[in-house]
């Protein structure tokens, strides 16, 4: 368990996912982004780590500016009633989040689609 600010603790799956998001972000060619996240991590690890996850998910899913990645939600949001127009794309985000959580994937995983594919392949081998 890692201790974060406000005496929060997070599980190993979430910690591994956040560390992967940080690793991927700091390996990017965009030096401005690297500098930004490095600074954020120095100020507040949790803030920097979750920002890295947000950034990597947005990138890996090719999301539009107004669309939210799955890490913006948690499992309590999954059964929320959303408006019919849903212009922010919350419905697909929640569907994707549910699929991730059902497969034991952290909501913070930087590449949800790749993680889902790996988990489904493992599941097919076992069954």
């Amino acid at each position: 368990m890692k201790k974060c600010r406000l005496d929060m603790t997070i599980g190993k799956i979430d910690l591994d996912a956040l560390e992967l998001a940080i690793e991927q972000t700091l390996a990017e060619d965009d030096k401005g982004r690297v500098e930004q996240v490095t600074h954020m991590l120095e100020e507040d690890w949790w803030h920097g780590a979750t920002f890295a996850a947000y950034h990597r998910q947005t990138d890996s899913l090719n999301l539009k500016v107004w669309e939210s990645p799955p890490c913006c939600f948690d499992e309590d949001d999954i059964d929320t009633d959303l408006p019919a127009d849903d212009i922010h794309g919350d419905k697909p985000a929640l569907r994707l989040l549910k699929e991730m959580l059902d497969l034991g994937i952290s909501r913070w995983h930087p590449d949800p689609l790749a993680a889902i594919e790996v988990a489904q392949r493992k599941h097919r081998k076992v069954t």
Partner: protein
Amino acid sequence: MPRKSAASLSIIPIDGRSSRLRPPASLSEAERTAFVDLVSACKPGHFQASDLPLLCRYVEASVLAEQAASQLRLEGPVIAGRVSPWLVVQEKSVRALVALSMRLRLSPQARAPNNPSRPPPQVSHYEKMSLGHDDRED
């Protein structure tokens, strides 16, 4: 200077809904996936609603060609001294793909010579999900 009309000054609303064709419910799961992947790989205005029947035939042929190729890889083109029936399936489905790709302007040969070299913008995964998802399930 001529006065600008109200129409020319009106704000164009941004509609988050996809302008791409959706797969009809009659397609199989594999065909629906092929359909969504294909329309997502092309620019939004590439296909019109009237192209839907051709698109459906294209993805059906594509899935069938994949299935035939898979069977041929597994069993080989000759089984017990006879030509595998999957060879005929593959030949016919590929022929359909070639013919339809010209009509749908999907092959390099079919594309206009003065096409810009920029690739189409990447499609949001949520848009792909909405293309292949039945909204009645929500």
